[in-house]
């Protein structure tokens, strides 16, 4: 199977004034298969979001290549939509349904068609009947659903999600995790999902990419999750995998700690 996404020896440093900035990523290489649910896990500050920004085309690698379906990424594009961390990416002057249909509006889809599609996706994320509300009238979990619906509406083959559930309460998070897996299974799209929650990554991912601690982070190891779906946290195999990954992550966190001092 051909890789949908391929990072080849990617270096990244922010371009700063004067002095050379330290490397954020160093020789980062990995692949994500078409239709795969790939979770990126790593200690905070290791550069997970930078990986997403590079793949989305918001930043350019300092060296190395990033290929999507064998084409190098040059700029943001509608085939790679992003669900951002936090909710400041929603358009506060638009209603929920207007936010969801935003991508279709950009594409020039006529008003009636795009409204119909947007309503369908609102239902998919469990927000039917809430379309007329403004983001300020919605809870954090609802806003996150709007973001997900807005990204899904474009039919992008690739979805990039940056800790979309990090700020949510456990109950809402669990519901949205189930819904997300449902959507993924239904649509067969490729997901890159960033998280620092080991349990969440085991629950969702086909494979988990474990990053080393920054600076100059790279891929430490990639762990396949061979548990049958739907997955249960109470499954002993789940716990065993959690242990295994936990050891690696805390090793990396310890390694990064003296540097943070």
């Amino acid at each position, binding site marked *: 199977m051909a890789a949908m996404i391929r990072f080849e020896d990617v270096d990244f440093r922010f371009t700063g004034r004067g002095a050379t900035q330290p490397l954020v990523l160093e020789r980062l290489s990995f692949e994500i298969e078409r239709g795969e649910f790939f979770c990126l896990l790593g200690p905070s500050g290791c550069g997970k979001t930078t990986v997403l920004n590079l793949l*989305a*085309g*918001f930043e350019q690698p300092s060296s190395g290549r990033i290929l999507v379906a064998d084409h190098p990424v040059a*700029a*943001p*594009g*509608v085939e*790679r*939509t*992003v669900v*951002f961390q*936090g*909710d*400041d*990416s*929603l*358009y*506060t*002057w*638009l209603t929920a349904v207007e936010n969801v249909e*935003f*991508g279709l*509006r*950009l*594409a020039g889809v006529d008003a009636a068609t795009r409204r119909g599609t947007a309503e369908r996706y609102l239902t998919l994320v469990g927000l039917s009947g809430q379309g007329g509300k*403004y*983001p*300020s009238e919605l*809870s*954090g979990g609802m*806003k996150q659903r709007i973001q997900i619906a*807005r*990204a899904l509406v*474009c039919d992008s083959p690739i979805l*990039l999600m940056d800790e979309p559930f990090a*700020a949510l309460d456990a109950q809402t998070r669990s519901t949205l995790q189930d819904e997300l897996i449902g959507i993924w299974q239904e649509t067969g799209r490729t997901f890159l999902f960033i998280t620092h929650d080991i349990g969440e990554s085991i629950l969702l991912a086909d494979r988990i990419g474990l990053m080393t601690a920054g600076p100059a982070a790279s891929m430490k190891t990639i762990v396949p999750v061979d548990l049958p779906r739907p997955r249960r946290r109470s499954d002993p195999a789940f716990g065993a995998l959690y242990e295994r990954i936990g050891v690696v992550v805390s090793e990396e966190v310890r390694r990064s700690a003296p540097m943070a001092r």
Partner: protein
Amino acid sequence: MSRLAEERAASARAAGAGAERRVRGRRSGRRFVVPNVLVPVVSVAALLVVWQIVAWALFPPVLFPTPVLVAKAFRNELASGRLLGDMAVSLGRIFGGFALGCTLGASTGLLMGYIPAVRRALDPFIQFGRFVPSISLLSPALIWFGIGEGSKLFLITYTTTFIVLLNTLAAVLTVPRNKIRAAQCLGATRGQLFRLVILPASLHGIFTGMRVGMGLSFTTVVAAEMIAAEAGLGFLIINSRLWFQTDVVFVGIITLGALGYLADKTFQAIIRRVAWRYAPTN
């Protein structure tokens, strides 16, 4: 994080409301309850009484006229039509220059915010020009545009342009990066990004600039009219001073304050009705 902050703010508001209710509850047990709308009425009335007493007891009318004298002068000026005429002249200048300045300032600010090359090219002029008080340009304005409407329009436009421009620019530059990135990864062209994201996200900044600009327009027109004009509220004030009609001077001052207050309230009401959804709530 922002959700947490919102929740905190909401609970703080709720607690605040509760406290208010408790205070009101305690108060309603007493004999005198003053409804909120009456508070400013009472405070203004109190000021008028104090003014009347102080002015009447301590000063000759030519130095400090009592409110009663000012009210009489107000009635005379209104009856003669002079006050309305001067008001119309000043307001015409203010709104003319204000409209021009808002258009110029907002459009330039948007362009500077969105196109870095334009920003770099114009920045020196902006940084220089914003420290030049418009009134210091009165002499060249008089030479170029004459003593009539032209020079006043120029000065008010100048004042408004800078303040609206700076506020617009700041608003454009602080549009949350994720709002821009979201549009980019949903397929927005440069034009769409500007029209559908940058512009609506910056409107609150433009409005803020306009409100400040409105206040400065009043200042500028009066200053200009005091130095060189044949009509307008500034002219009314300076001209009455020459004739020791201190009561009419106060009529001019109070009219200015009232007009400014009204203009701002109207502007706010319009924004609330038309543009409430552009308030930055997130």
